[in-house]
């Protein structure tokens, strides 16, 4: 073994330590989130303000940006900017207050959880970068690397949305739970020693194709969580409307409103869909360069296609009367299940895939 190889080995070792450390810090963040939800359930204010404001569509009109300022100018009150009144169609329910409700301790714990998540993310990022350095290529050529990079990107997307001021903190607990599962699985079942690539994987299209697949997966994940939360929150709202209650309602009432969740899910899925289309096409171009055919109904290709078609069905459902809402949300969940199956299921249960990174060693 030459010196460079030894350096790479050290780097790979460092990467492993970093990923383990990230796992530990994520666990702390997970506990903080649990505590946040627990404290939040005590919040009385949360209960009151989340009580459903069921209204007839006609009567309700809420003001939205841009805001109005009334100023005295030359003695007459002048509107500086006309006020825009918006009307929602359908149920008009305010968003829940988030995990912490308005409990101060809960809020503090939530902030701690986010800080811990940020710290864990940085360690995680360092782990992925050192892995890449140790193998001298993009670190996503086998399932271990794909998994670690995948959860890192998912957390990155989440923190990015938070930094942009989007109200997505409620996703935190779901996300960290998944990240823990993903990293745990990666470090145990999927672990592969750091190494270079077999020739078929040495292509710039690999970097493009897999990088896009990772981004798509991480975003589809956020979309799926929103759809799931939408389904629950929607039943919660319609039950409240009917004057009934629902189990765990202390959790559901802190979620954003069904309309908000539905919109978030749609936006995420719609934005990612063209990228997913591109991912598949990039994969086809790579397949053509490596194997001489751009489409061969290999199980991985087939399941990418299935995922794509189901997401297209979801977008159609959103535009079709009678399929909006819950039915469309079910389609979105089926589509994400196909994505997950393509990633884990095909690699583990279906043999005969040419995708050599499918190998679990």
């Amino acid at each position, binding site marked *: 073994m030459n010196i460079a190889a030894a350096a790479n080995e050290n780097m790979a070792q460092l990467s492993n330590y970093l990923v383990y450390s990230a796992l530990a810090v994520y666990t702390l963040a997970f506990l903080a989130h649990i505590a946040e939800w627990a404290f939040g359930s005590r919040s009385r204010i949360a209960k009151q303000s989340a009580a459903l404001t069921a209204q007839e569509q006609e009567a309700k009109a809420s003001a939205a940006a841009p805001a109005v300022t009334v100023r005295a100018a030359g003695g007459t009150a002048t509107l500086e900017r006309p006020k825009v009144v918006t009307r929602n169609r359908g149920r008009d329910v305010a968003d829940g207050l988030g995990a912490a409700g308005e409990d101060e301790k809960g809020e503090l714990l939530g902030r701690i959880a986010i800080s811990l998540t940020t710290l864990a993310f940085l360690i995680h990022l360092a782990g992925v970068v050192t892995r890449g350095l140790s193998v001298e290529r993009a670190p996503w050529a086998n399932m271990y690397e794909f998994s670690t990079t995948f959860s890192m990107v998912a957390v990155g997307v989440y923190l990015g949305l938070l930094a942009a001021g989007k109200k997505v903190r409620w996703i935190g607990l779901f996300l960290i739970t998944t990240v823990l599962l993903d990293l745990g699985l990666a470090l145990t079942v999927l672990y592969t020693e750091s190494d270079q690539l077999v020739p078929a994987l*040495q292509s710039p299209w690999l970097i493009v194709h897999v990088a896009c697949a990772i981004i798509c997966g991480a975003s589809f994940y956020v979309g799926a969580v929103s759809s799931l939360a939408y389904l629950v929150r929607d039943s919660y709202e319609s039950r409240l409307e009917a004057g009934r209650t629902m189990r765990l309602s202390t959790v559901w009432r802190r979620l954003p409103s069904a309309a908000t969740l539905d*919109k978030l899910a749609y936006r995420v899925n719609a934005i990612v869909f063209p990228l997913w289309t591109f991912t598949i096409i990039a994969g*086809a171009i790579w397949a053509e360069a490596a194997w001489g055919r751009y489409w061969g109904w290999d199980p991985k290709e087939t399941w990418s296609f299935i995922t794509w078609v189901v997401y297209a069905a979801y977008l159609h459902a959103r535009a079709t009367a009678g399929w909006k809402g819950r039915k469309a949300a079910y389609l979105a969940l089926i589509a994400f299940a196909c994505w997950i199956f393509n990633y884990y299921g095909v690699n583990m249960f279906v043999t005969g895939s040419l995708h050599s990174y499918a190998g679990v060693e």
Partner: protein
Amino acid sequence: MSTTKTDAAEVMSSAPADDTGTGEGPGGPQLGPVGWLRWLWRQLTSMRVALVLLFLLSLAAVPGSLVPQEGSDPVKVQDFVDRHETLGPLYEKIGMFHVYSSTWFSAVYILLFVSLIGCIVPRTWQFVGVLRARPPAAPRRLERMPAHARWSTDAPADEVLAAARRILGRRRFRTGASDGSVAAEKGYLREAGNLVFHIALIVMLVGFAAGQLYMSEGTKLVVEGDGFANNLTQYDDFKDGNLFDRDDLGGFGFTLDEFTGTYERSGPQRGSARDFRADITYWEAGGEEKKAVVSSNHPLEVAGYKAYLTGHGYAPVVTVRDGQGDVAYRGPAPFLPMDGNVTSQGVVKVTDYVGKDGERDQLGFSGIFVPTFEGASATRGMVSAFPALDNPVLFLTAYRGDLGVDSGIAQNVYQLDNERMEQFTDADGTPLAQMMKPGDTMELPDGAGSLTFERIDEWATFQVTSKPGTDLALAGAIAAIAGLSGSLFIQRRRVWVRATPDGHGRTVVETAALGRSESARVAEELGDIAALLHNEAPAVPEQQPEQRPDTDPDTDKERA
């Protein structure tokens, strides 16, 4: 398209209206055959049916990933048929082993594409109509729109409207005016993008179909120093589409100068391939010879064909002498790899053999070649320990008799049919078998001849394909992504401004916006437009006795 309905957002979609049970429903006794056909066609081109067909298509694609497919793995299919007595024939009957060319899979996607065409054509006309027409006039009750603003001003109504047209025009809205109001619309690219996307899907399908019909695909094993010319007789294996003209083959050829494989020497993945490259010299009809390198991800592209490097192995070069001491055969014999370390199996066939006593006969040698010999394993026999030529060993047994090559039955060149052959044995009757290193010679008993293991050449297999539809499919794919992005990221929205004299010398300005889907941005945009309009027609306090309670800024709080 009308916008006077309250549900104007629905109407903004140019999606074909779904049959919601109104009008002539199915089953009505008054429906004649033409009526039925019409009804069927409307069903087929409705969004709901498109949705169901899409879902069916994804379902239909599933079995192909779970059941072995003839196209990719015929051996597994055979294995499956052997193991499942009842399921095998059933699967065979319903096309389960070639799902993607089965009747039912084709039926789903053909229906989908008929539906798609039936959907695109009317939508295109509608879209052209929309582009020609002015934006639809303002609905009567603007305050019912999703975003709405109103104020009173001292500016006269016609000035307000003129200003509104100017402002909207500057923001690249298409505007139209009717009595007392301005109507504007923007975001037609959404619709255009959507049409481009759906048309691109058809282009892609045509590309795929052309690729299938006109494709040709063949493989050829070439030993270092040997060549290949693109015609049918040269291929080891060839298949083509129904419309491919085999006389069109030709146009190029190449010689394999050298094949190089490099492998991981240490670490847990020791033995994994790192790089394969084939150095070749190729020629094109009427052109000069050129050098090129073909490697795993870099096929040779020439004369409309692509030649991919798809496999490699070793070919021991042997010299066989007959009973007279003459050279009966000299050359490489490609051995086929059986595992990742290139443990290979192969044969040497000698058809022109003359025995010690001058009788004509044939010889056959069969055996194993390992590039790196580290001792034979008791259970698995001779296996290679590493894919490179570190310690090459050839292990052969020999036969004499009828090779069966003249029998007219197609014969595998890499297998020995020793039914009518007799194995050479030692003096004590055990079959003759010998392990050889390069340079070693195996003597056949009783002066029957010899085989000398000279050296080792490498060989590579090339897959030569032509798929004329590929570029079309790729163009379709790129157009699809572009169209899709336009369709998903652009909002189509309408803005109306109405200015009405209030009878007290003032003008009431009302403006409203409607988006194709509910979006906060529509309200923001309306806010910007209203602010610009407000600069030209400033508000004066409205003498309205009833202050609408919900316009109180305090309600903002509950949204925060």
